[in-house]
């Protein structure tokens, strides 16, 4: 998860798209905003670095976020659900603020990052709650 994040941010930042990752991919919908080839349900040329990184980030974060705890009981499950709701709210609050205060391409960048932040917010909040619980129950015998 960490390495894919790192490369992800780097490639987003410097627009890094290595040649060897230019391959033909199948597309269902392509309105040709970025490129001139406009056609649906065909093969187009595309750099797949961002696709690979996106998949890596999502899958690895899902593993981190949703793997079971040592003892996964109903209380942990409740915290999990609460954290997920909380993360969803926070994610949209961030997006709303970005809509109001950020424009043009910077907004597009924030939107790109916003796709993934919901999982990160969840991971942070869930583990924080678990940490608090463990600390609270430590001083009891």
């Amino acid at each position, binding site marked *: 998860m960490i390495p894919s994040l790192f490369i992800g941010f780097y490639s987003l930042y410097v627009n890094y798209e290595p040649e060897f990752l230019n391959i033909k991919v199948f597309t269902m919908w392509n309105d040709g905003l970025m490129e001139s080839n406009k056609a649906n349900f065909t093969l187009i040329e595309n750099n797949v670095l961002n696709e690979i990184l996106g998949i890596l980030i999502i899958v690895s974060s899902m593993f981190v976020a949703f793997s079971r*705890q*040592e*003892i996964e*009981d*109903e*209380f*942990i499950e*409740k915290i999990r659900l609460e954290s997920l709701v909380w993360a969803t709210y926070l994610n949209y609050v961030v997006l709303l603020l970005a809509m109001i205060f950020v424009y043009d391409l910077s907004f597009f960048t924030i939107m790109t990052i916003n796709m993934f932040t919901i999982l990160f917010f969840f991971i942070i909040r869930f583990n924080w709650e*678990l940490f608090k*619980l*463990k600390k*609270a*129950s430590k001083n*009891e*015998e």
Partner: protein
Amino acid sequence: MKNSIKVERAKNNWTQAKLAEQAKVSRQTINAMELGKYAPSIVLALKLAELFETTVNELFTLDESDWV
């Protein structure tokens, strides 16, 4: 909701960890219930009552704040 888990635990001389193990939940869950931070599911409440050889009604009681 109030509960007498701590009292029952003391009667049996069980630690939180031992009760947690028998009820197949984490120790944090027992702790949170004793502190009144978490209302268990009906299944867990029934399990606890059975472990303490009492009834759910005796283990858990409503208090004023539940009616607000």
